[in-house]
């Protein structure tokens, strides 16, 4: 099982500022069978509203500091977080035991390889 956590602002095209990852990609990842959700500074209710408005059923919506909670709640073989910030995405992701991908790296969907 693969779990993928998406930052929103600066990462997804629906973000503020917009990032490069389209919602279709998240939908595709979900259809690959991955556990998918968002980890963002947006209010959790706003994260849920974004996913609902795109008809994507996600597995989690959490605040930025809650990747450890995600890891504790979901059993997966590998955990990824995709985000655009060193201090708020990369560092906390690595500390929480996630693999980290910048948005331009995530475009390639490197997790598909070898699974």
């Amino acid at each position, binding site marked *: 099982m693969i779990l993928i956590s998406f930052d929103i602002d600066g990462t997804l095209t629906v973000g*503020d*500022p917009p990032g490069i990852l389209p919602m279709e990609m998240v939908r595709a990842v979900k259809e690959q069978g991955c556990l998918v959700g968002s980890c963002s*500074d*947006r*209010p*959790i*209710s*706003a994260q849920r*509203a974004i996913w609902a408005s795109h008809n994507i059923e996600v597995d989690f919506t*959490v*605040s*930025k*500091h*809650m990747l450890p909670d995600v890891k504790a709640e979901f059993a997966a073989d590998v955990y990824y977080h995709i985000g655009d910030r060193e*201090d708020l995405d990369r560092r906390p992701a690595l500390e929480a035991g996630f693999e980290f991908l910048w948005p331009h790296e995530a475009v390639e969907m490197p997790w598909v390889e070898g699974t």
Partner: protein
Amino acid sequence: MTENAPASMYRTDEGMGLWEHRGKVAAVGVGHSPTARRWDGRAETCVGAISLIALRRAIEDAGVDPAEIDGLVMDPVTTTGAYWPKDKPVPPEVVGAFNSTDNPLDGIAGLSAEWILKNMPELTGIDFTMYGPGCMSNAICVAAQAVGDGLTHTCLVLKSWHNYEGRYYQGGANAGSDLPGTAALHALWGTPACYGTALQFAEYCRKYGKNHDMMAPFIENSRQNGLKFPEGYWASHRPEEITPEDYKAARWIAKPANLFDNDLPIMVSAAYLYTTAERARNMRQKPVYILNHAASNTRPRSLTPTLDEVEADTARTARKIYEGAGITAADLSFENMYDGFAQFHQFHIEGLGYRGMKFGEALDFYQTDISIHGPNPILPSGGNIGCGRSRFWMHTDSIQQIQERAGERQVTGVKPEIAVSGGPMPLGGRFTVWSATPD
């Protein structure tokens, strides 16, 4: 050259009696620019350009001939933490789009009165300019006093904010490896801007047996009110509520201050038109009379204000506010004190004794009906939490509430007759008392 207002223009002392111009100065026009999270680099969205929009809208709103305007009071500083990088070239196409001053960053990273006058040729009658630096709270005190003193009879008041790419506060000295000795005494420990307020809040909670979760209804109410402020950032760009669950799940910035106890830096500009009570009668909008303005110049004894220092000063500020306006707390229809940071709003309103509140009681008050539809509205503007960082929503809202044109935000549980707004911090704030009538 435009000078800063002299200290004598602020009403800083207790025992000054009624303000000598009580009810003789009025706000008659409001203009706001659109908001943006950050500057996109275009000439038409730079801080100078959005200031021109706000000023022209205020003139239009008041229905005055621009040639009649003879004064401009404003803040030349347009940020508290977004710096233009030292080596970054100034975009020539932006500078070239305007009539520039000697400072190429004028209109981009700051704003002089000269820049405004060079770019508003319709303002042919201005012979008084003055800076009220700090925020709109300062500028409107200076404008009120200037109109009262007869230095100007029809005066624009302006406050603008720019914001750039990158994280706020993380440029400049914070990115470097060394600090000068004096700054180091404060800055070496890496405290975010909200730290001092968080400390006061921590002491407040210990002293009165309160907790951080008790702030949730205030945050929720502020954002709900802000979402009814069409000029605000959240209403126009990201209409997101902050539910109590959202608030409690947010990450800490400086515990006990979390992400939603902080406001979002944005670009925005607002302008008001101030005039004499006599002239106001012939203008388009219902005049909102100024009963008083008051100021605190208090500084902490040492590095950061203690709760005792905060409470002593908010009480002193309230006495000045009421004395000069000739009112008591019971006369307030609503309050619009500052909230950026959310955790000092209660200090302001406890000092005021709003609705009979005493020190340590505001967080319990927040658990009751504080909405715009109840008898005890708290921050109907939504403030910075509801609309983004400007430090002026509460002034605009006070004017519009009293004019009964606050739209969806209009208070319905009270008759909007007298209000107080001001800030920023409990120590060092500037405050205005607004009224539907001059007496």
